[in-house]
């Protein structure tokens, strides 16, 4: 019976998605509200007085960045809570004693986190149409890229949820690392706007490549090489998978 326990993956997936439904208010409404506020302040209010960036109206320019900001933080927190809570309450015993390996666990937990992120992304993109005019030049690639980013950061969140041994650590990483890097990662500006020492420094920030990758699928323009963007996103995803495979192999923080 070696192979993939499809029923287990499905059972975890359904339960996790249902859990999100129970907290729809928190998991969907709150991020949508936050994003709308950004659109009102940066897109409508400030954006009205700004020049276009690279031929794109400022309000539209920030759409991919804002979408990414929400995707990163929500994917990370959804997946991290998804696996942290069972560890915290002790219900993880069942998962550990079941014929379930890394593949089923990821398909279930991370699959559910990605699903939530995609629903969220659609809602945000719909909300954005209320405030700004934007277009998506490569819609298929955009969807693919969003899925890739959502998967990568859900995997990252999963690692976070296994690493954290208290609630503080769970929120500290998104707050202290993810948020600043995303804000500095060209969410609200093109890094070409930065004077030189800062521009080179910005290029070390991996989020810059994610934002630009997504922006390219929207407007066909990017501050950095688009292949580099895709490569970095894929590389991050692969690194997360490798770390998780290692965690399951060694039982780190899962089995005593």
């Amino acid at each position, binding site marked *: *019976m*070696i192979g993939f*326990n499809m*029923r*287990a993956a*499905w*059972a*975890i997936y359904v*339960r996790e998605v249902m*859990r999100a439904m*129970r907290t729809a208010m928190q998991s969907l409404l709150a991020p949508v509200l936050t994003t709308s506020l950004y659109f009102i302040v940066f897109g409508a209010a400030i954006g009205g007085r700004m020049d276009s960036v690279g031929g794109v109206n400022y309000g539209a320019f920030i759409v991919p960045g804002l979408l990414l900001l929400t995707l990163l933080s929500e994917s990370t927190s959804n997946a991290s809570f998804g696996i942290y809570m*069972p560890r915290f*309450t*002790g*219900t993880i*015993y*069942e*998962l*550990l*004693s*079941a*014929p*379930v*390996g890394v593949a089923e666990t990821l398909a279930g937990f991370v699959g559910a986190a990605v699903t939530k992120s995609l629903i969220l992304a659609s809602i945000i993109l719909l909300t954005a149409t209320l405030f700004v005019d934007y277009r998506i030049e490569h819609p298929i690639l955009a969807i693919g890229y969003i899925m890739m980013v959502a998967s990568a950061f859900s995997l990252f969140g999963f690692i976070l949820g296994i690493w954290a041994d208290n609630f503080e650590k769970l929120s500290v990483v998104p707050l202290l690392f993810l948020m600043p890097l995303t804000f500095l990662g060209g969410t609200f500006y093109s890094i070409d706007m930065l004077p030189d020492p800062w521009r080179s420094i910005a290029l070390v920030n991996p989020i810059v490549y994610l934002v630009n990758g997504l922006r390219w699928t929207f407007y066909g323009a990017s501050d950095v090489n688009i292949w580099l963007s895709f490569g970095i996103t894929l590389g991050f995803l692969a690194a997360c998978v490798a770390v998780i495979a290692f965690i399951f192999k060694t*039982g780190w923080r899962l*089995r*005593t």
Partner: protein
Amino acid sequence: MSEPILEIENLTKVFAGGFKALDSVDLKISKGEIFALLGPNGAGKTTLIGAVCGLVRPTSGTIRAFGDDLSGNWRSARARIGLVPQELSTDMFEPVRRAVAFSRGLFGRPSDPARIEEILKSLSLWDKRDEQIRRLSGGMKRRVLIAKALAHDPELLFLDEPTAGVDVELRRDMWRLIGRLRDQGVTVILTTHYIEEAEEMADRVGIIRGGKLLMVDDKQSMMARLGRTEAHITLAAPLAELPPEIARFPVHLDSTGLDLCYRGGDGTGLGKKEVADLTKALTRANIDYVGIEISDSTLEDIFVGLVEEPS
């Protein structure tokens, strides 16, 4: 003995801090038997179960279940093992029925609402099927954990202190449930602090202390090996020393010279016969007595004797 369903060899667990919770444990469990693991707090019972169920990584030793070495082929074995943990940890916001159905799926079985209904009814949970688990009483929560463990029809079931903190009725329900499982051919390994439970339910008993399995045997042989009869004969007049007529018996006098104490036998009736012989010998020696108190040691005494020995 029938075929082994679980074979543990030389299992040792040293926790990260250096604490040795299991020390070279060897244990063989046959298919269909009810095995009770008896031991005081911190003896290593939960750790031993955890090692088999994949919660604890053994430091050394091998575990085979259904003939498969768990370090390699754990998947197929785990699908056939169920675990009711000691701690009451459940998904508090899930309704009962969904939580139980989830467990079945997690163990790779196709959904079967009729089977879930049967399990819930057998545990008197059917009325609570749509209730969120957090709204149930502690005893009910424990039933849910049992239902979850039974949801995939395991062939080997671990019950880690199934009757800790439950009322008399639930305990009796539990015994009935174990009886039914035995009839169905399910192998059950349970841990308990209550000797009566081990005596009532188990075919074999293992006594564990300080991570060492001190002794494993079926109840009768354990009694035969360690059981003792104790008798106190109150004499009519004090004796200064033991008369030669009764010197062949395992007896001694207490300091008052009034209480003649016999300790011997084997837990299977030899002791009683010897006490009868002893009284006849006293009569023949013209030593009068005014009272006899006789008792057989129970598994409890054996257990207490074993675990209270300094290690």
